């Protein structure tokens, strides 16, 4: 199937500053795709280029098989949900949603049917005549979403639309957004700097950094098998163990980390002796116990800090060589760990190995 959106060798620079650096990206129809990255990584610029508000310095953007690189925003079949919603303050909810429909040349009857249908989708039928100022944040969010969906765009672009909401509402809206995407079957292109949002909703996450794509994949892969230090750090909490290869054969590599020998799966890297690698060790993969574990990697450590976080407790454990490891313990297990001295253990297959790019050159 042909992708709905294709960025082909897209570059965008402002003077000397390069915002987007040779971006190549295809988006399949009906998918929830998230561009994730820190501010200034080029994700918003990419979105605005697709929306037509920025013109690429070079490259081509294809939308449903047509070149739209230089088509103005009002002539392309994409719609944006803006960060601060940008609802028209002088128009009622219904008129806001009807705006794009009228400009498409729909007659009154048809506009009305579509508006009612969309309002029903988000249960805002009773708010049709209200002004945006009379709505709550979540309701405004929904109206903005419906206004952008109304003209039936090929792709719906969402520019950090949840950032203005408080934490609880944000979680609720994440679920709702995903549900609406599934119900309507629309392609969503979502931009955020919040990794949790990305993990919750996306079919595909595109991690961007300094104008380039760092890694792209489904949430599971990105979390479980980050391809770079940046991705490992950006998505979820991580312990990064910079280690030296002692020996490597097939699926098993023996590594030296701070004078401790650990094993990991090099995942096809085939590293040589003496090479440096990063081992990505997620806090929840570490098992903390009072007694020495029998299998897998194991290290003795001292608890330096306990942070209670409600559904779990975070332990900062100092291990040999003075390094700190971040671990995660369930409330039921915390009681057993009364002593400061504990054992940390993990299975080699729960870790991922990333080459140390700098050391290789």
């Amino acid at each position, binding site marked *: 199937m042909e992708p709905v959106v294709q960025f082909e060798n897209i570059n965008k620079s402002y003077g000397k500053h390069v915002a987007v650096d040779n971006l190549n990206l295809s988006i399949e129809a009906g998918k929830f795709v998230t561009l994730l990255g820190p501010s200034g990584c080029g994700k918003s610029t990419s979105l605005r280029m697709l*929306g*037509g*508000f920025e013109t690429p310095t070079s490259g081509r953007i294809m939308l449903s098989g047509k070149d739209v690189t230089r088509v*103005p*925003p*009002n*002539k392309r079949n*994409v*719609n*944006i949900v*803006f*960060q*601060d919603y*940008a*609802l*028209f*303050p*002088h128009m009622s909810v219904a008129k806001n949603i009807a*705006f*794009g429909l009228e*400009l*498409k040349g729909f007659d009154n009857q048809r506009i009305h049917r579509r508006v009612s249908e969309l309002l029903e989708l988000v249960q805002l039928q009773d708010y049709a005549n209200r002004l945006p*100022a009379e709505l709550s944040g979540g309701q405004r969010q929904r109206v903005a979403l419906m*206004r*952008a969906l109304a*003209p039936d765009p090929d792709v719906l672009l969402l520019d950090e639309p949840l950032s203005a909401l408080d934490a609880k509402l944000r979680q609720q809206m994440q679920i709702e957004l995903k549900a609406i995407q599934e119900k309507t079957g629309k392609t969503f292109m979502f931009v955020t700097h919040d990794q949790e949002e990305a993990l919750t909703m996306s079919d595909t996450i595109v991690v961007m950094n300094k104008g380039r794509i760092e890694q792209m994949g489904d949430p599971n892969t990105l979390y479980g098998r980050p391809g770079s230090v940046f991705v490992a750090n950006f998505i979820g909490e991580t312990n990064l163990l910079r280690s030296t290869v002692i020996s490597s054969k097939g699926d098993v590599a023996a590594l030296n980390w701070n004078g401790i020998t650990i094993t990991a799966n090099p995942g096809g890297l085939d590293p040589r002796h003496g090479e440096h690698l990063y081992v990505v060790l997620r806090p929840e993969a570490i098992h903390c116990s009072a007694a020495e574990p029998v299998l897998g990697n194991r290290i003795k450590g001292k608890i330096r800090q306990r942070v209670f976080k409600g559904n779990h407790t975070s332990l900062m454990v100092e291990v040999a060589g003075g390094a700190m490891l971040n671990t995660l313990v369930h409330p039921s297990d915390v009681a057993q760990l009364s002593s400061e001295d504990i054992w940390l253990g993990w299975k080699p297959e729960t870790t991922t190995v990333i080459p140390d790019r700098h050391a290789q050159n």
Partner: protein
Amino acid sequence: MRNMVSDAPRTTLTAFYWAFILYLLLPLTLMMAMSFKDANFVAFPIGDWTLDWYAKVMQDKQFLEACLYSIMIAAGSTLAATTLGTWIAMLIVADGIRGRTIIFALACLPAVVPGMISAISLRIFISTIDMPTGTMAIILGHTVHAVPFVVVMALTRLRSMPGNLVDAARDLGADGIVAFFRVTLPYLGPALFGGMIFCVLLSIDDFVRTFFLGGYRPTLPMLIFAKVQGGMSPEINAMATIVLVVTAAVGLYAEFITRRARTR
């Protein structure tokens, strides 16, 4: 306000404020009172009271014509100034415009040129383009005078406008013109309304430009000026009172409308 300002300055200032209000309102009150004097000459004390002067003014054809003429000129210049002022403001806030400061300075120029000089220069200007003195010239002069105020009011409002609104309209299929008329203009609405009322008052009030640009048909200020120079009579007071009450009511109404719009 629970600050530590002691009471003595506060009382003094309060008294000063009311004294100032008295200073502002006393002459106008006296002028209005005199319009009810039952005598042919303007002098205190008033003695007998009458409404005859109002009856006389309302039958004064010259006065009624001057009123209509002034309103016509005010309407024309307000319409032109609002359109031009908004247009200039849109240009000033537009993306990627070079020389923004120069455009703004030029837009404000008529506001810093003293009235008399502005009138003279306009008089010379219309003669160099062979425009006769009269209605068109007055409207042109009043428009030049009013444009800076509209520009400033529109700019203030435009700067408070979320930048995304126009983007959103464009995104939903509106071209630049549609976005302006459907989104920007309604957003400007209350500010422009206030500006328009201000332009009307400015035009009706203007004497010096009208004096130099006008023909033989007198506007309200010109009529009053001629009458005052011709000799005092309570009739002038009645005329002035009517004008004052009407303009104050319009001003108050505009104040009310813009204030309500601002709190929304």
